């Protein structure tokens, strides 16, 4: 590698290369956090000390696992990698509005990952869990500062990303592209970034107060000096509930792209999906945070009020789901590995989302809160639904990024291990959760009857590990040695496939496209007309069977 190519990669400001760097970074976070999960599962597999007799060690694994999975794997993977690589291609832009700020965001992200990973080597690693509740996070002797700064770096990175992408979508759409001609993925990304822009500052403020309280002796959360212990939780969840939709929305967006292409169908009830579903979720998401504080002694009117708003989230999510199901209706469905993952997500969104419903009821959560039932709920919706949507997207767009297919027997094997493994892991947690197994327990002497369930879950975790090892190795192999893919192999109508070549070069489009009102990213019913509705015919050849 010459110096020049090194610089062009390492210091790149190109959205596609930054996207790849996000992919690498977030997958690295996933692997390390996944290995932590294996340690957690091993420790819990037997009563009493199993692989460590020091609870603090377990606590810092769990801290890393939770924080890294949510904040360094899913959020950067979905809004960093997918948005960076594909959003400009979908709207026909040559890059994002502020390429240098984009590079700034990726480095902030890497800074955060490095800071988080340092917790394996520093003395007194953070042990405050990803939620960092005071007063514990203030009175502990461990390094809460690193927790705070990790969140600061990631938060700043996301806020700048939000500014960047909002301006990009507003100003850099291909000439003629109306808002109602955007891909659903573009919409979900815009919505996710609106959430990030508004809510991250609140999280940043909350953890800043934590930092001040711990190290500078202020009294934000100190009841003895007029502070409020619950303030932090309110601020934290005011961000962190919307954050779950920062994950959920782009994950759904990816699925919509895959379903539309693999079913060769229009998106069912596009406007209802966008304005009712996506923006409905954004609209309600700021008024439900108290459902994480049902057992925290909040005033009753807040608990009841937000029980109703939380339940009402099922309406916009339901509209989104109706559109997703409707996109299958009368489709012409073909399968690839991406579609396999996507179809499994149809069921995972149900098991993950519907188990949120009992949790939404204050009175029911009195028993379920802080048990492994909650684990099972959010692992189904995050570790399974959202992560699988990511994997689906990686397979689906693999030919775009690397010009090669990643599909094949290994891909399917990995999928089978993954889907079976996650169920074996998390169904036992559902069961013992209802029976009362608490969270964040390195040991459970008072519940010896749960041991067999924990053992099954541990077996499941190792199945996932096998599946993921196969999957990741398969990606690496395919990127260099996979079967070469033709242009637009899945015969999509969406612009990233029709107008940008595989492995798009700098500048993305050989000829910058523009569109007329008749164009749609989902115009399968009359492809020729749809292609004719763009000034640049793209690769008309690929509409006919490609070889």
């Amino acid at each position, binding site marked *: 590698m010459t110096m020049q190519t090194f610089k062009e990669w390492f210091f790149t400001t190109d959205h596609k290369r930054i996207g790849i760097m996000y992919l690498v970074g977030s997958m690295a976070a996933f692997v390390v956090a996944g290995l932590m999960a294996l340690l957690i599962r091993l420790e819990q597999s037997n009563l009493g000390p199993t692989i460590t007799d020091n*609870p*603090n060690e377990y606590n810092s694994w769990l801290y890393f696992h939770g924080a890294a999975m949510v904040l360094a794997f899913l959020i950067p993977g979905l809004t960093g990698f997918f948005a960076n690589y594909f959003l400009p291609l979908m709207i026909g832009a040559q890059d994002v509005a502020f390429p240098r700020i984009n590079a700034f965001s990726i480095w902030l992200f890497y800074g955060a990952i490095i800071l988080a990973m340092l917790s394996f080597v520093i003395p007194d690693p953070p042990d405050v869990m990803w939620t960092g*509740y005071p*007063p*514990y996070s203030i*009175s502990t002797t461990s390094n809460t500062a690193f927790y705070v700064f990790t969140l600061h770096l990631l938060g700043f990175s996301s806020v700048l990303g939000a500014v960047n992408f909002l301006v990009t979508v507003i100003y850099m759409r291909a000439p003629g592209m109306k808002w109602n001609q955007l891909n659903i993925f573009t919409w979900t990304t815009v919505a996710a970034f609106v959430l990030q822009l508004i809510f991250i500052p609140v999280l940043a403020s909350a953890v800043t107060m934590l930092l001040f309280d711990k190290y500078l002796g202020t009294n934000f959360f100190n*009841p003895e000096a007029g502070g409020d*212990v619950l303030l932090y939780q309110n601020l934290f969840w005011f961000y962190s509930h919307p954050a779950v939709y920062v994950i959920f929305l782009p994950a759904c967006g990816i699925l919509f792209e895959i379903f539309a292409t693999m*079913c*060769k*169908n229009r998106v*069912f*009830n596009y*406007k209802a999906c966008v304005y*009712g579903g996506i923006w409905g979720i954004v609209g309600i998401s700021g008024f439900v945070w108290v459902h994480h504080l049902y*057992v*925290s*002694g909040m005033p009753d009117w807040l*608990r009841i009020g937000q*029980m*109703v708003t939380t*339940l*009402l989230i*099922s309406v916009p999510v339901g509209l989104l*789901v*109706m559109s997703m*199901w409707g*996109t*299958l*209706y*009368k489709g*012409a*469905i*073909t399968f690839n590995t991406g579609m396999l993952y996507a*179809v499994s997500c*149809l*069921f995972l969104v149900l098991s993950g989302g*519907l188990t949120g*419903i*009992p949790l*939404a*009821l*204050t*009175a*029911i959560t*009195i*028993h379920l809160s*802080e048990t492994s039932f909650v684990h099972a709920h959010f692992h189904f919706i995050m570790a399974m639904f959202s992560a699988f949507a990511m994997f689906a997207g990686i397979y689906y767009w693999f030919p775009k990024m690397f010009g090669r297919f990643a599909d094949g027997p290994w891909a399917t094997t990995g999928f089978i291990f993954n889907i079976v493994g996650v169920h074996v892991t998390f169904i036992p947690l559902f069961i013992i959760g*209802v029976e*009362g197994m608490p*969270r*964040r*327990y*390195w*040991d459970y*002497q*008072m519940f010896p009857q749960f041991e067999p369930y924990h053992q099954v879950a541990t077996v499941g975790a190792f199945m996932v590990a096998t599946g993921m090892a196969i999957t990741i190795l398969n990606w690496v192999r395919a990127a260099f040695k996979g079967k070469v893919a033709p242009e637009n192999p899945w015969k999509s109508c969406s612009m990233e496939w029709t107008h940008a070549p595989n492995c798009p070069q700098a500048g993305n489009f050989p000829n910058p496209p523009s569109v007329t009102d008749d164009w749609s990213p989902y115009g*399968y*019913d009359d492809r020729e007309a749809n292609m004719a509705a763009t000034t640049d015919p793209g690769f008309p050849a690929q509409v006919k*069977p490609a070889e």
Partner: protein
Amino acid sequence: MRTLLGKMSLSILGLIAAAPAFAQEDGYERDPAAGWDYLWHEIVIDITVIGIIFSIAAIWMVWKYRTKDENAVGTAPKLSKAAAIAWVLIPASLFMADDFFLSAKGWTLWNDYRRIPDEAKEIRVTAYQWYWEFDYGDEIITEELVVPKGQPIVLRMTSEDVLHSLYIPGFRVKEDVMPGRVTYVWFNPKEVGEYVHTCTEYCGTAHAEMATNVRVVEQEEYDAWFEQVKEEAKAASLNDNTQG
């Protein structure tokens, strides 16, 4: 337009259907734990039904519309404006009907959880890293919670250091215990036995070991136990006094 109206009135009917949830069956005994089990059962049925309907629809469509022909295209019709609106209003109303139904049920049970019966006996609880203290009044403090069968108990809880959470799975109660605030839970111990009582808010190193037992005993046994504790407390305080 006529059909649209019809569909809308149908959905309003659905909303009204939620109303019975507020009505209470006769002979309803106010007991949160039993109420919990009952509502849990209902809600599991509710979400299972929804899940199965959507799953079947998904399986059916993925099966029915699969094809080997790579050049086939989907044939879903473009929705008319009325159809598009109906496809929003009807599902949204149905979902809302279910939401309000569940809200009403949940609210009723919630009131049971919060309204302390008049005859309840009060015990004060203090949490420390990492143990519990139970204050029966009159300076009688124990490290184990013993209660007589059939006597509703209300626990008033506070913490001396960080957040904890008092959790008795057997009685389906849990509430955070915080410094500077007093929270409460109440329960009705109906069966004699030992129940796990543990901490479910992360509180540091020994969070997983902050457990004790709730012992529910017959009234006589309870009285005997209480006398004994009282004696011990007296002896201890005498000791303290004599030792200065």
